[in-house]
């Protein structure tokens, strides 16, 4: 361990706490400063700075052969203090978070016309960013709980910023689910602490055993996190919450917040409490994931509202993430790449899609799919983004979604779990059918009474969404890029945290 | 030693009874009041467990302020219900 920490790495580690401090500082400034234009430009500048930091970290991680960055906060080493950890996997997720949050920041600058809403949005948005970066960097179980609460509460407040009854109801339900999930997680943390007297993840990874208490703890934590990640039977809160939030918030919730909870779950299963996991448990989770794909797709196909359609598509896509579990259990080296790919591809595609849909909804004044026929001629850019993001969600060739599914195919064949392939294929077909339903309507000529009137400047804020949509294609064309980083990371450390 | 253990047992039973009462009472107000008393009982438990800091925080924040929040919200919803009720009555009269 000591030979890894040479001088450039130690200096580079200094960037880690900045990922948390920077958004936190900006949240305070946004809360205190009244002028919304200052806040907007400052936010965009910080977003760029944040992205640069993340880029520096990833390039350092690559150039140092996938070294694991650790940083003991306050100089207190692990069991006493809290340490931040960054490995190749979390570096990629962090870079993705920085990119998407910059895109959403730029988009929100255009989106919020109401000054009151904008003033409430910015501080909460930066708090959400703090929590997300904190989750991807955290190396401590209790710290993860606090981060989860911060993420949950800021997410809830963001849903409720437009004060409409439906938004408040959705926010209330989301809050109850969030608090309940965090408490289940905290119960698991308490059980772990009861058994090992430790909270630090890398130390736990070294000492954890497969005893009954650890299994119980992992079960409770998984249950809480699965509830927050909205896997099939526990997804009931997601469509309302994601559909009634303002578009930038829906984008953030779908693209980033779900990934935050999934990341914790994934890390707990495959790098911290691995001795307590069983193939049966992983398969059960995978089975629910498979049902989620079918159920979410069918619901997306039958719904009338465009935003609900995208929200149900999230339910389906979350299913794929959980199918990774049984594959990961048997063939971790390969599946880790699929996980990283899937997370990045889905996050970029879903964020772009929600932004495009938000734009359509705002310009057309509604999001009834039936009344949107012919929208493509009025808002070509929005539909274009929707289509590109859709390509990635379906898993068609030149996209990140395709690569992710391809690797999942391979590892399913390799581990002789061919039955998951059926769900991958059927899920792809189903998502194609519900997405083409929208695209088909968008290109038909509308009847006279359903004409949509659009002002010329309707698509100004979509540039960032376009960039995200292009990213989903670029990572598909340049498949080796993310996989290389993951492979480099695998050489020096086992999966998640260093041991 | 033996007396201490007896006391702990009694306290645990009291806490469980109060919790059951608070959670499964049909009347909301009773539930809130029982919850506040649960907070006080738990405070004693924290003292028994040598956690004085936590006991102070529990009695001020856990029992006191959470209780005040619950009572405030309860009061507000009662008033809201009354208003709603009167509106409903006037509406039916108008019809």
């Amino acid at each position, binding site marked *: 361990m000591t030979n890894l920490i040479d001088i450039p790495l130690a200096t580079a580690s200094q960037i880690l706490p900045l990922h948390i401090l920077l958004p936190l500082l900006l949240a305070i400034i946004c809360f*205190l400063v009244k002028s919304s234009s200052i806040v907007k430009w400052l936010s965009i500048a910080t977003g760029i700075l944040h992205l640069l930091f993340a880029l520096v970290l990833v390039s350092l991680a690559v150039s140092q052969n996938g070294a694991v960055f650790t940083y003991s906060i306050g100089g*207190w080493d692990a069991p*006493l203090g809290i340490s931040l950890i960054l490995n190749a996997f979390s570096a990629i997720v962090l870079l993705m978070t920085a990119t998407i949050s910059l895109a959403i920041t730029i988009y929100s600058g255009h989106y919020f016309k109401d000054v*009151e809403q904008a003033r409430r949005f910015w501080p909460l948005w930066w*708090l959400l960013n703090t929590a997300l970066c904190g989750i991807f960097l955290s190396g401590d179980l209790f710290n993860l709980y606090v981060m989860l609460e911060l993420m949950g509460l800021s997410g809830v407040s963001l849903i409720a910023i437009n004060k409409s009854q439906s938004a408040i109801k959705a926010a209330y339900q989301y809050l109850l689910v969030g608090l309940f999930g965090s408490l289940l997680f905290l119960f698991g943390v308490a059980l772990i602490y009861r058994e090992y007297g430790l909270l630090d993840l890398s130390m736990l990874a070294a000492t954890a055993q497969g005893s*009954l208490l650890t299994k119980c703890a992992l079960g409770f934590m998984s249950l809480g996190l699965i509830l927050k990640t909205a896997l099939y039977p526990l997804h009931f809160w997601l469509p309302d919450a994601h559909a009634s939030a303002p578009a930038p918030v829906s984008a953030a919730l779908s693209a980033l917040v779900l990934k935050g909870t999934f990341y914790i779950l994934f890390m707990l299963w495959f790098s911290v409490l691995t001795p307590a996991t069983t193939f049966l448990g992983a398969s059960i989770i995978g089975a629910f994931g498979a049902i989620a794909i079918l159920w979410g797709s069918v619901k997306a196909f039958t719904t009338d509202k465009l935003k609900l359609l995208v929200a149900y598509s999230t339910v389906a896509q979350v299913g794929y993430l959980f199918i990774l579990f049984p594959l990961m259990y048997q063939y971790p080296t390969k599946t880790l790449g699929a996980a990283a790919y899937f997370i990045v591809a889905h996050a970029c595609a879903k964020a772009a899609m929600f932004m495009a849909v938000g734009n359509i909804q705002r310009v057309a004044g509604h999001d009834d799919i039936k009344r949107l026929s012919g929208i493509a001629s009025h808002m070509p850019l929005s539909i274009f983004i929707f289509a590109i993001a859709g390509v990635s969600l379906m898993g068609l060739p030149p996209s990140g979604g395709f690569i992710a599914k391809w690797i999942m195919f391979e590892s399913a064949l390799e581990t002789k779990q061919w039955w998951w392939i059926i769900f991958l294929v059927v899920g792809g077909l189903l998502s194609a059918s519900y997405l083409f339903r929208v695209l088909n309507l968008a290109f038909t000529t509308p009847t006279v009474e359903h004409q949509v009137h659009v002002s010329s400047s309707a698509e100004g804020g979509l540039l960032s969404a376009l960039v995200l949509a292009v990213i989903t294609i670029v990572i598909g064309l340049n498949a080796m890029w993310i996989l290389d980083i993951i492979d480099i990371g695998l050489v020096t450390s086992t999966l998640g945290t260093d041991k | 030693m033996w007396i201490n253990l007896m006391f702990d047992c009694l306290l645990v039973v009291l806490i469980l009874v109060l919790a059951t009462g608070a959670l499964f009472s049909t009347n909301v107000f009773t539930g809130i009041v029982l919850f506040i008393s649960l907070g006080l009982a738990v405070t004693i438990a924290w003292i028994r467990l040598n956690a004085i800091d936590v006991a102070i*925080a529990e009695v001020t924040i856990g029992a006191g302020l959470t209780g005040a929040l619950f009572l405030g919200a309860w009061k507000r919803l009662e008033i809201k219900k009354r*208003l709603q009720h009167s509106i409903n009555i006037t509406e039916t009269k108008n019809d």
Partner: protein
Amino acid sequence: MINAHDSTSLKNRYVFIIIMAISMLAGCVIYALLQTPAPQNIMYDLVQANIQQSGVTNPVTAILLNFRAYDTLLEFAVFFCVSIASLPYLDAGVSDSSDLETQDAPLFSLVKVLAPLTILLAGYMLWVGSFKPGGAFQAGALLAGCGLLLTLSNVGVTRMNGFWWRSIFSMSLIFFILVIGFSYLHSHTFLMYPTTLSGRLILFVEFAATFSIAATLYLCYLSVRGKVSQGAHRAS
């Protein structure tokens, strides 16, 4: 009629299944707990070994504001988040004349005595936190309780949206970040206080945190309770 009966019996069955499942789960956890030996107690020794450098002698304060100050920073962020979320609801009230609040003289004179006492107690709590049980959270809660007492006797505070109130809500974080910046200049490490000053810096952060926590808790109460106006607003 049959339908309604069916749905209640279905609900009863559902409730029964939930209760059975959770009881079994709890039984399993309790069995596992009783099987597990007590954990090794490394934390106590570690804290005892390092408490000299932490600047305070109360181990809990040392944990909260030095060893694991990062958690506390984020906890202040949680509070900050709640205050941002609660502010817009401050004026949206439907209360009519309320009987929880009174204007009768005995209560008011009691409050006049109690309020300064609570403030004094809060100050003591804050100061004592560095070597005995106590600290910012407890002091903040006491201060908020004082605010609550004042509200109950109709001594209200207005315009919590103003700049000064907003800076009080964010005060804990601002002071904390100032301290972080200051100590970074000394030690070049995130959240590592200079040893000679750490006691004072911790007190500084706790001082700010007390006000923020009190203000936020008070704000929570006010926004939950709603604005007291004489039957002005009606639920739509």
